[in-house]
C-alpha cells in the first residue's frame, strides 16, 4: 500500500523532506505510518505526545485507517497567528 507522507516545520527538518512516498505493506492506521517514520528517524519519536495528524487534508486521529493513495500529514504543535 502506497501513501504520501507530508511533514511540516521541525518534523520536516528532522526527516530532511516535506513529502515522502511510503510503501507500507501491512500498515493500516495513521499510527502505523508514524511508527515507521519514527523507526527511520529516531529524532521524530519525542513528537508522538504532541502530534496532530490529517488524512487527505482532514484532521484525523492516530487510530484512523489509511487507504492506498492517501496523503498522511503529521503536524507538530501549531504556532500561527
Amino acid at each position, binding site marked *: 500500500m502506497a501513501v504520501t507522507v507530508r511533514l*511540516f516545520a521541525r518534523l520536516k527538518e528532522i526527516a530532511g523532506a516535506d513529502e515522502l512516498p511510503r510503501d507500507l505493506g501491512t500498515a493500516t492506521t495513521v499510527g502505523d505510518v508514524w511508527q515507521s517514520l519514527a523507526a527511520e528517524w529516531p529524532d521524530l519519536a519525542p513528537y508522538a505526545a504532541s502530534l*496532530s495528524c*490529517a488524512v487527505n*487534508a482532514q484532521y484525523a486521529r492516530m487510530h484512523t485507517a489509511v487507504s492506498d493513495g492517501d496523503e498522511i500529514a503529521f503536524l*507538530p*504543535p*501549531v504556532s*500561527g497567528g
Partner: protein
Amino acid sequence: MLLPFAITADPLDVAGLLTLAQDRHAAQAARDDVEGPGAVILFVGAVRGRHQGQEVEALTYEAYEPLAVASFERIAREAADRLPGVVLCLHHRVGTLGVGVASIAIVAVSAHRAEAYAASRFAIERVKQIAPVWKREVLRDGASWVEGATVHPDDAAPLDEAWSRAWR
C-alpha cells in the same frame, strides 16, 4: 479574485478583505431579511521585533494550505453557530516576514458590535489552536520553530477556552 479564506505568499490585502467581508454580510442579510453590516472588526497580527527578551529579525511562516483553509472555514462556521449572522474572513500569509509586516488578517462583520468583537477574538484564539500554520523565529544567531498548541478541532475543552476569551 479575493477569497474569504486563504493562505497567501503575497502581502495581505487588508482593504480588499474589509470590503469582501462587509459585502458578504450585506448579501447574507438581504437574503435572510435581517439587519445588515453595522460593525466591522479587523484584527491584524504583525511581526514583533522582540519576543521574550530576544531580538527577532524576521518570522518565517509555513502552512499546510488545504487543511489551513479548511480550518478557517470551520472557525467561521463555529462562530456563526454561536453568533448567528456573523461573517468572518481570514487570510494568513506565509514566507519570511520582516518586523512590522502583517502575518494574519481577520475581518468579522455583524449587525452589532458585541458579536463582531466576540467573533474576531474567537477566530484568532481558534486559529492559534487548530490552524496548521507554524512560525520560525529568525534571531541574530540562529533560528528555531515555535511550537504552541496541540489541539484536535473536535475537542470540546479548547473550543470552550476560545469562547471564554471572546464572549461572556
